[in-house]
């Protein structure tokens, strides 16, 4: 049902675009909306844990040791909140290009 794209014929689309399954927001990659992107500078990162709770798109993965990893650009919309919150300058915003 969410496995549709810009070649799917109208007969294969649900009426009104309704989605008859749940838990599929991850199928919708919003990363291409981004015009600026955060760059993770791991050498400066202290793993203080301030950035990932503020990300509105859950685009900063955290591993089992509770350490953050590099950005998930499939969903990061480039809002810059994480860069703003980082006290150690470990996130820099760059033009997409």
């Amino acid at each position, binding site marked *: 049902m969410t496995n549709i794209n*810009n070649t799917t014929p109208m007969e294969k*689309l649900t009426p009104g675009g309704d989605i008859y399954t749940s838990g599929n927001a991850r199928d919708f990659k919003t990363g291409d909306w981004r015009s600026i992107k955060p760059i993770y500078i791991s050498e400066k990162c202290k793993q203080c844990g301030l950035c990932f709770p503020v990300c509105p798109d859950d685009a900063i993965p955290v591993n089992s040791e509770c350490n953050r990893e590099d950005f998930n650009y499939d969903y990061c919309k480039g809002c810059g909140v994480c860069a703003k919150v980082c006290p150690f300058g470990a996130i820099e915003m760059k033009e997409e290009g």
Partner: protein
Amino acid sequence: MSIRERLSGNEAAATAMKQINPDVVAAFPITPSTEIPQYFSTFVANGVVDTEFVAVESEHSAMSACIGAEAAGARAMTATSANGLSLMWEMIYIASSLRLPIVLSLVNRAVSGPLNIHCDHSDAMGVRDSGWIMLFSETNQEAYDNTLMAHRIAEHKDVMLPLMICQDGFITSHAIENIELVEDDKVKEFVGEYKPEHYLLNKNEPIAVGPLDLQAYLFEHKAQQAEAMKNAKQVILDVSKDFEKMTGRKYGLFEEYKLDDCEVAIVCMNSTAGTTKFVVDNLRNQGIKAGLLKVRVFRPFPAEEIAKALSHVKAVAILDKADSLNAAGGALFEDTVSAMYVNNVHVPAINYIYGIGGRDTKADDIESVYKDLLEITQTGNIENPYRYLGLRKEEN
């Protein structure tokens, strides 16, 4: 045996709603449809229906509540007029695009401004391209009958579109006339239960309704709506057949009144058809072959069928009770002549804008239209196809 009563158009609509006993009614009062939710809330208070009545604070909310209810899997109804429908406008499109078969009783009234509370069709014409099925009713009986048929049409799996039943404000809504009601149990059986395939309150199938629909999809979803609207034509005919079996009252996409052998014809909708029938009978007594095509189903527009039904006439006048203010005629006129052109029917056609803001349209006015048509059949001359009926103008 059916029940003989005398009811106003609003009472007829409310009575039909009572017999349908929908899950939800959400409405906000506005003249001249106020009585419908008023009567209905009495039914709710008296416990004669099981409906959840949502007394909303605006028509926008009324339509929104109906949308929520239908998406949840319930059967929802509402009623409004004129500016009430204008306030619903945003949600009117949401209802049809989400394919929610809401049923709305539209008591036609002029959309302000300047402020006017009387009948014309400007409210209905404002939503004519919104993807709602639109049925027009000449009398209280037709308003009642159309309401009883509404859910069967709207909820049909090949359709799944909202539907509005139009009747003329005050002229029909407030005039008390004889009516034949169907017994409660028969209505219940005829209308049946609403069992949507997908709905929000189904715990076994969590669904999302109304997602973002960008360049890659909206076009196809609109085309699906158009397809459903085409399907509605046959469904309306099928449901009307079943209704005829139950009541003996016959309904088609339009009514032909002495049309098959007529030379001059009028096309119109709602109560004006009653006046026109009276004039047709008078003219027939004088040997004039006058006829009428009364449009019942305005959306979907029965283009091919109307063109065919008019193909033999010598001249036709299309009466619009709303001015499109576009320098090219009213909506019914445009649809009718475009239907004729596409179907290769070339009959001289003129348009009259009439009855605006409740201006009375009398038998003499209608007769003057037939006289104009007769003149056209004789001279073959149409000086101005865009005309007014009953408008005051300086004589020159």
